[in-house]
């Protein structure tokens, strides 16, 4: 118990906010995905902080954060494949220009 629970939660909140900024403010689709990864990391910090401080005897917290890890990997794999596929046909990864459905 190095630091109180709230410190970890503040850290998670700050990381989540930064990731949120990255997702909404970046032009490049790959950078948007990096923002998503930051948010998932923030989520994992919170899960593990609650696991350590509230229910350390129960492995549920750790198991869920491993599931988050798996989901993050699947998300990155498919998301980046989508970006590559769009890049092939449209020659761009700028999300402002990827607006086929609008027209």
């Amino acid at each position, binding site marked *: 118990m190095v630091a109180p629970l709230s410190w970890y939660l503040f850290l998670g909140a700050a990381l989540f906010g930064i990731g949120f900024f990255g997702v909404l403010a970046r032009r490049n689709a790959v950078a948007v995905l990096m923002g998503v990864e930051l948010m998932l990391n923030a989520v994992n910090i919170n899960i593990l902080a609650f696991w350590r401080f509230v229910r350390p005897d129960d492995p549920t917290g750790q198991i869920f954060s491993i599931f988050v*890890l798996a989901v993050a990997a699947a998300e990155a*794999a498919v998301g980046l494949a989508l970006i590559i596929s769009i890049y092939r046909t449209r020659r761009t990864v700028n999300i402002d220009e990827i607006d086929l459905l609008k027209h």
Partner: protein
Amino acid sequence: MLDQYGLIGVLAIIAFLFPFVGVGIAWMLRPKRPDPIKKSTYECGIETIGDAWVQFRAQYYLIALIFVIFDIEVIFLFPFAVAFEQVGLFAVFEAILFVVILAGGLIYAWKKNALEWQ
């Protein structure tokens, strides 16, 4: 448990500083006479055309992709292996199902020639 990681933390700092210290000593000893020819990119003596951002093939991405999926699988199997003595026969079949489903992915990649390096 945290005491065990104390040494790793200290070692991390020392292991990170060690190469820098070496480079620092070398910086004091070595000659420093750069010129544009020395600093140019080494490409078999030919003038470099453009920068190094050549277009890469999707094959690299496919390999990385299959690697990511199997890496996750390994991460799931390591705790299972540690808990192996404490679980029943049925649990083993659950783990086998897990592996077999992902082996299906490998077979798919094989059939789609994603494993070929053309």
